[in-house]
């Protein structure tokens, strides 16, 4: 059944397929836990889309399913019209995961270069792109060290730089500012906003509700593996007669959790 909150297929870019289309996604684990329960979602090309929900709501499972890291139990997922498991889809996707999941045998410059390689980029172009991003994220003086020698903030920048190595059209950011200081957070948002302005679709999960409200042109609220509402920050505020998204969140997510 189609999600009543699913956005229309219209794209900002006129004619291009949605950046992400999820239909009937379900993921249950061996112990019976249902992480995602029949989720439908469509994100237009060029959107800055926020996904909000408490821990365990299914955000990371949804992202993992899109990125071919988690095996969905049921449902179909497509990225710019391609099956999410296809090489075309994976070429178009970039993921900055919540965890600092980097290869500890490689230097940070090698981490970037090999990531580009896994996306089919040649050695020279990969090295050039790595140097660009090391400079952009002010990691160039750490190029030859291992990731575990970096501070937490630097590791976070490295994960984001890696996600951008192959110039994805759809950038998925799973809690990209968790545990980073205010200065780095605003730096990260400046880069991500620039990417979105240049055409990159961004799918963001965050626990910083004020950030989602400021950055995202559309927000979906996820609870118990289902999208319970979605819309622009303004339309959600209006619908719930709320002053801000925190209040919307309290009414839609927190209150419902208390009831259930």
């Amino acid at each position, binding site marked *: 059944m189609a999600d009543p909150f699913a956005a229309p297929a219209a794209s900002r870019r006129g004619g*291009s*397929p949605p950046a992400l289309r999820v239909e009937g996604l379900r993921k249950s*684990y061996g112990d019976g836990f249902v992480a995602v329960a029949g989720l439908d979602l469509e994100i237009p*090309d060029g959107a800055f889309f926020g996904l909000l929900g408490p821990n365990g709501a299914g955000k990371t499972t949804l992202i*993992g399913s899109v*990125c*071919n*890291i*988690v*095996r969905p139990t049921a449902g179909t997922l497509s990225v*710019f*019209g*391609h099956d999410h498991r*296809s*090489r*075309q889809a*994976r*070429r*178009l*996707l970039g*993921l900055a*995961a919540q*965890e600092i*999941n*980097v*290869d*500890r*045998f*490689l230097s940070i410059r*090698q981490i970037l270069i*090999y*990531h580009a*390689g*896994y*996306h*089919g*980029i*040649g*050695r020279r*172009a990969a090295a050039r792109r790595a140097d*660009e991003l090391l*400079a*952009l994220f*002010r990691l160039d003086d750490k190029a030859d060290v291992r990731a575990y020698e970096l501070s937490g903030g630097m590791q976070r920048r490295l994960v984001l730089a*890696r996600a*951008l190595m*192959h*110039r*994805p*059209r759809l950038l998925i950011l799973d809690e990209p500012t968790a545990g980073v200081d205010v200065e780095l957070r605003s*730096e*990260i948002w*400046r*880069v991500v*906003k*620039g*990417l979105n302005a*240049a*055409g*990159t679709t961004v799918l963001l999960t965050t626990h910083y509700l004020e950030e989602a409200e400021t950055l995202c042109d559309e927000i979906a609220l996820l609870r118990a593996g289902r999208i319970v509402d979605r819309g622009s920050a303004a339309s959600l505020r209006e619908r719930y007669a709320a002053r801000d998204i925190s209040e919307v969140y309290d009414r839609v997510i927190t209150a419902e959790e208390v009831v259930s």
Partner: protein
Amino acid sequence: MSGTEAPALPAYDEPFRAERSPFLWLLEREVLRFLTIWRYSVVGPVLSTVLFVVVFGSALGRHVDTIDGVGYGSFIVPGLFAQAIVNVGFFNGTTSLFEARRDQYINDVFASPLRWWEINAALVGGGIARGVVVGAGVLAVALPLTHGGAPARPLVLLLGTLGVLLVAAQVGVIAGGHAKSLDHVYSIESIILLPLGFLGGVFYSVHQLPPFWDVLSHLDPVFWLVQVERIGFLGQGDVGAGWALAVVWALAATLTAWSAVMFGTGRLKP
């Protein structure tokens, strides 16, 4: 961060084209991984194997009769060569894949355009490459020490060694895919691999054993890996060359199928 960038976005409707094969990148990474830790991954196994040759072959071997007309030192080298390949193949696959799963950087590979069989083949290729490097190191030192000459049956040696390399690398990858902790990895090595190695006829001919143990030895996969190398190097073993090659390649095919199912069905993903 020094400024935002304006990326040239890839077209969404073009087929995937690689400037350089993602498989080659991952294979290169696998080789780079063990070369980065060369003291542990290459020098250690070569040294410990050569010490076996020195202690058992050169020192104790003087007090041991020839076996089937072959000096004891020369007799044990093929088995030690096979065992060295099995050990490094096992540890290469287990540590590489287990650590990639534990630290979750395998997700970066799964999310990329690499196909499941390319990931499988690159991981196995890394184990084979390490087996070749360590095996060559072992022979470079052990053969002069035991006055070993040219292999008696080069074709059996070549086909057999390819099979042994494949078996060892696949065992490592399969164990790395199933292991739930580092303790699990080491217990597989000490409880399964090590006893099979010692009971695999590296240091003796199974015909020297009582009949029951002679027959039982034939159920040990390592026995066949040792035999195929011994026949290749010395021209004789406890079984015929055809049988040894057939069993080794049947093992390699079975393990390759097992490994392929593990990757192809996505069992490494939650």
